[in-house]
């Protein structure tokens, strides 16, 4: 039996697992990283968190440099940065694909949740509730196990690598949340919108497309962006089912350096990547929420 599920193995038992990685040439860069990071953040809060991180790193690195010959923590992190960046690129890619699929499915499911047909409505509701109340990790395992590694369509074989299955696994909860947001947004519009469109001769589908959906966009945008940030922060889950991303690369880096003192700075560094990516999104979400709240 083909078992696609790869439980995380100890990377030390997998020599040759690491791609060839040349350490960065310049070691003078930490300052550069600092300024680059700063330009991403606009609020005091972000700067405060970042400063705390840099201070703790600096302190660790100073202690190390004082102790002797080994490379300092910052230098080590810098050395692994290209690999971690590549890993984070996978996280971003997985999050964007899952979000796209989940959004499209969720919008459709949400519309079905307000269908005039009672059976369709109930089925859509059940599907939504099922996926909304399932742990994301369990959904991921199910997708990895249940989706075949390749699918035959009209004689051509379409491969289904693990990362694609993971994308589908993560898109399911996104779909469920979107479906609920969509239903809520549709039902929050006054019934007069339906009635006036009806009395002007619009069909139900036309009313949905031209009158209702355009008005839901404004209401959906903040929770949608929030959901994206939550999804991005959940992407490290895919490392548990054997898909490469920043966490699995971080573990690999730690294994190859074999330095206990690097553990905490490394994971802090990984946190930093997520923070820098997600913090501006939540800031923007708050701004949009405030703006819409004032307007309507």
């Amino acid at each position: 039996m083909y078992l696609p599920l790869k439980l995380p193995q100890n990377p030390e038992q997998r020599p040759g697992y690491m791609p060839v990685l040349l350490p960065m040439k310049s070691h003078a860069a930490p300052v550069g990283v600092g300024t680059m990071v700063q330009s991403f953040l606009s609020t005091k809060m972000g700067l405060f968190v970042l400063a705390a991180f840099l201070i703790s790193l600096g302190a660790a690195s100073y202690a190390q440099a004082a102790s002797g010959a080994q490379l300092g923590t910052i230098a080590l992190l810098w050395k692994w940065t290209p690999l971690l960046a590549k890993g984070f690129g996978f996280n971003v890619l997985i999050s964007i694909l899952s979000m796209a699929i989940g959004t499209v499915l969720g919008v459709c499911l949400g519309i079905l949740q307000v269908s005039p047909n009672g059976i369709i409505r109930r089925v859509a509701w059940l599907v939504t509730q099922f996926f909304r109340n399932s742990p994301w990790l369990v959904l991921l395992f199910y997708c990895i196990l249940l989706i075949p590694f390749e699918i035959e369509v009209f004689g051509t074989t379409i491969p289904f690598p693990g990362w694609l299955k993971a994308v589908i696994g993560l898109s399911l909860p996104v779909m469920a949340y979107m479906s609920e947001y969509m239903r809520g947004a549709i039902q929050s519009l006054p019934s007069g919108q339906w009635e006036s469109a009806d009395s002007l001769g619009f069909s139900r589908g036309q009313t949905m497309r031209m009158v209702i959906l355009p008005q839901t966009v404004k209401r959906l945008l903040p929770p949608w962006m929030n959901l994206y940030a939550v999804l991005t922060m959940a992407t490290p889950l895919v490392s548990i089912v054997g898909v490469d991303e920043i966490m699995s690369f971080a573990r690999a880096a730690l294994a190859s350096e074999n330095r206990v003192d690097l553990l905490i700075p490394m994971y802090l560094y990984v946190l930093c990547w997520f923070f820098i990516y997600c913090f501006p999104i939540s800031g923007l979400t708050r701004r949009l929420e405030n703006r819409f709240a004032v307007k309507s």
Partner: protein
Amino acid sequence: MSWSEDKPIVSIKDVKKSFGSLEVLKGVSIDIMKGEVICIIGPSGSGKSTLIRCINALNDIQGGSITVEGREVHDEELDKLELRKKVGMVFQQYNLFPHKTALQNVMMAPLKVLKEPKADVEKRARALIKKVRLEGKENSYPGELSGGQQQRVAIARSLAMRPDVMLFDEVTAALDPETVKEVLVTIKDLAAEGMTCILVTHEMGFAREVADHIYFTDKGVIVEHGAPEEFFDKASDPRTKEFLSQVL
């Protein structure tokens, strides 16, 4: 059955309507001739809105019949779109589409429902906006207009479908006293042009001025009706008298 102008354009016969066990209309009959303006008045909860909504099938009925230009409205076979083209409706809460400008609101139904050419529709829409005295507000969004202005856009939007009958359900009830007048003037213009209008209103002075016929409803039945002068001055039913003494 063919319809001709000597027969009622809207004929309501013994209509019964219930919401669950609550009987809201208990056999209402009204005939309206083409070009007539009728006002329906009565206490809150007497079923005025329900009646007017039954005329364009926003509500279904449990008994009786309603015909518009000879066609039964509550007929399974009815082409809803045919009815929508004949009957326009204006609501108390305007119900404009907030994401569209005034002009787009007026243009939308003729463009998307009747599928008429855009140039024609736009010309007509601009003329209608002028007619409701809102020149210069074509590109304003509903949120940027006053209640009275929004209601006039809503009237223009209904007229853009070229209806034969207009239904108005307490269209001034949500407005400030100062803006009520501008909407009433618009409706008066329409009536003067020969539009068949069915109005639910609490504006007694206006009803007296524009209506050809007044119907007083209470608890789902028509208690009394007549031409404005005899209705307001010679009401005989005690319920009508009591209502009039409260509102006049």
